[in-house]
């Protein structure tokens, strides 16, 4: 018996086709959902970081014009309690200015100290360094104490404030009046970008500048050690090494090293570089060495991958016209794998830039970054911190003022990471030859 094939219209989908199409649609929906969730998290993260971190970039100050005559200066310098004299001069100028603005408010020297800290010292320091300002009206921008800053930002309110030697409710009346008169305002906090770490009780004075320099010197060490070592090792392993048990072992170990927790490298650095080799503690040089160890596997793996992706026909072509192995690698294979190598290197560097744990173990903690290095040698050898370690130190401090500094530090760190990624993309495009 033979069946004549039944006519089926192509316009009607059979059940199998329907099922397949439905499965495909479902899969696409999953994909879109996954991307949407990822985007949502990213947006939430960015929002939180900006919301918590941006306040670190503003600073609240009191503007005050002070005029100091030569006699006043000479007189103050001859006294025993010099800063007290300067404070009184400041208060005189302050009350003059209040009068000039038609402001009537009760205050005393203690209240001013609670608002502005020890102003006498600041003013004396300014005039001793700028002798030419004596006799001229000079505008001072005096930083408000951390609690008053909190009041400006809404962190401290009249309801939550408990009178203490740091701030009293009556002080807030002075603040309100001065703010309305425009004498107390916010401004961009350059000191946060250029400054060094401050003491635990002075969040307002804390800056990330010194740690940025520390990170910079560390990255120099990482770049100049891990790039040549990593690329040379990859080229040898990929192009020259015989395939045997030993090279297999080396390969497996490189892959394993890439997965070793960074704190292990930290303790290795502590015991080898500091305790055994007696390199200085907390030095960016040591930090750079530790991060080099950490970055090498990443660079080697990505370099080998990009060397592998160069088609073997290019190697054959070079060997076929009598190029040596090395000529074929350096003239043909390496240039072609350059974009991959550079991308891998910069990703490795970016990873190293954000690494905290190993730095804590070798002493590059935040509070070490109290001053800028004097020069290049000092940049490598003198105690310093790095951005992530600085952020960690701030986040661990009690004063809430440091909390927003930590978030601000994260913004600075992210800006540097984005910058490095931009460089990676730029180099990739530059070296990539489409032909």
């Amino acid at each position, binding site marked *: 018996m033979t069946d004549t094939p039944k006519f089926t219209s192509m316009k009607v989908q059979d059940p199998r086709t329907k099922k397949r199409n439905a499965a495909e649609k479902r899969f696409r929906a999953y994909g879109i959902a996954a991307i949407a969730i990822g985007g949502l998290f990213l947006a939430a993260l960015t929002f939180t970081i900006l919301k918590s971190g941006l306040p670190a970039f503003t600073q609240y100050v009191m503007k005050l014009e002070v005029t100091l005559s030569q006699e006043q200066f000479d007189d103050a310098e001859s006294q025993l309690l010099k800063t007290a004299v300067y404070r009184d001069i400041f208060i005189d100028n302050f009350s003059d200015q209040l009068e000039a603005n038609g402001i009537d408010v009760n205050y005393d020297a203690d209240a001013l100290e609670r608002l502005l800290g020890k102003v006498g010292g600041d003013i004396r320091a300014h005039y001793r360094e700028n002798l030419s300002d004596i006799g001229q009206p000079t505008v001072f921008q005096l930083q408000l104490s951390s609690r008053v800053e909190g009041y400006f930002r809404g962190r401290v309110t009249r309801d939550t404030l408990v009178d203490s030697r740091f701030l009293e409710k009556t002080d807030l009346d002075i603040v309100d009046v001065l703010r309305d008169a425009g004498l107390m305002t916010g401004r961009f906090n350059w000191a946060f970008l250029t400054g060094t770490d401050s003491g635990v009780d002075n969040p307002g004075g804390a800056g990330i500048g010194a740690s940025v320099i520390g990170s910079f010197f560390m990255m120099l060490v990482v770049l100049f050690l891990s790039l040549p070592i990593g690329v040379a090792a990859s080229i040898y392993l990929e192009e020259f090494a015989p395939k045997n048990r030993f090279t297999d072992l080396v390969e497996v170990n490189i892959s394993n090293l890439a997965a070793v927790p960074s704190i292990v490298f930290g303790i290795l650095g502590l015991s080898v570089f500091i305790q055994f080799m007696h390199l200085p503690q907390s030095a960016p040089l040591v930090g750079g060495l530790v991060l080099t160890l950490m970055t090498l596997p990443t660079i080697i793996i990505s370099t080998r991958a990009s060397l592998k992706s160069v*088609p073997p026909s290019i190697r054959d072509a070079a*060997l*076929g*016209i*009598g190029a040596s192995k090395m000529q074929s690698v350096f003239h043909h294979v390496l240039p072609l794998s350059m974009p991959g190598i550079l991308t891998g290197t910069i990703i490795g560097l970016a990873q190293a830039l954000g690494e905290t744990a190993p730095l804590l173990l070798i002493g590059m903690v935040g509070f070490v970054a109290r001053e800028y290095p004097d020069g290049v040698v000092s940049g490598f050898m003198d105690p310093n911190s790095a951005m992530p370690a600085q952020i960690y130190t701030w986040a661990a401090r009690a004063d809430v003022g440091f909390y927003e500094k930590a978030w601000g530090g994260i913004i600075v760190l992210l800006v540097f990471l984005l910058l490095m990624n931009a460089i990676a993309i730029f180099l990739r495009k530059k070296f990539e030859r489409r*032909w």
Partner: protein
Amino acid sequence: MTDYKISAKDVQVYYGDNHAIKDVNVDIEDKTVTAFIGPSGCGKSTFLRCLNRMNDTIDICRVEGDILLDGEDIYDPSVDPVQLRAKVGMVFQKPNPFPKSIYDNVAYGPKIHGLARNKIELDEIVEKSLRKAALWTEAKDRLHAPGTGLSGGQQQRLCIARAIATAPEVLLMDEPCSALDPIATAQVEELIDELRQSFSVVIVTHSMQQAARVSQKTAFFHLGNLVEFDETDKIFTNPEDPRTESYISGRIG
């Protein structure tokens, strides 16, 4: 000294445990085209790659027996394979120009072998090689354009120009036309015939018509054995071995 350019004696090739080439004896004359034919996997390409030691790059590959170039054993420990490959050039199955300009592709060999003392000599070599490879008229106005921008047939002729720029004595061609259309194939075949004036050419091909058209001598390989090696005319008209007969008449392969 023999009169042959290359003579292979009792050549065995092993890939690990796999005995890929068995007892091959071939004598290749100077200024002739020798074709290697045979079904896929018969070892003809493997044998070709022994002639300039390209198999050295494969770790598990082992070659035994003697291969003499002008009477010297090329597998002698004192022979540098890099120097050998300058004398025995190779063109591959898939056109593989370097991702550089046409000029740089051709100039690369002479540069690394120090064949040109200055830019003028180098320019001359490049022009001569491109002319020989019948690419000059098409390429002379775009010498600094990327070699990979050429068509497939032009790319293969560029690879041939690159190979002859180093002034080799033997040119090995591994299925040079398998990726080309009939017109490009015809151009390359014409080229091979011209190249025969200057040096000996060994060509591996899947196309028996091609072997018949371009070669004077033909070797038929089957399952790693050299079945028959003789004048091309004789192989295609009056083969001695029944296996050759069945292959060229399309019964095996």
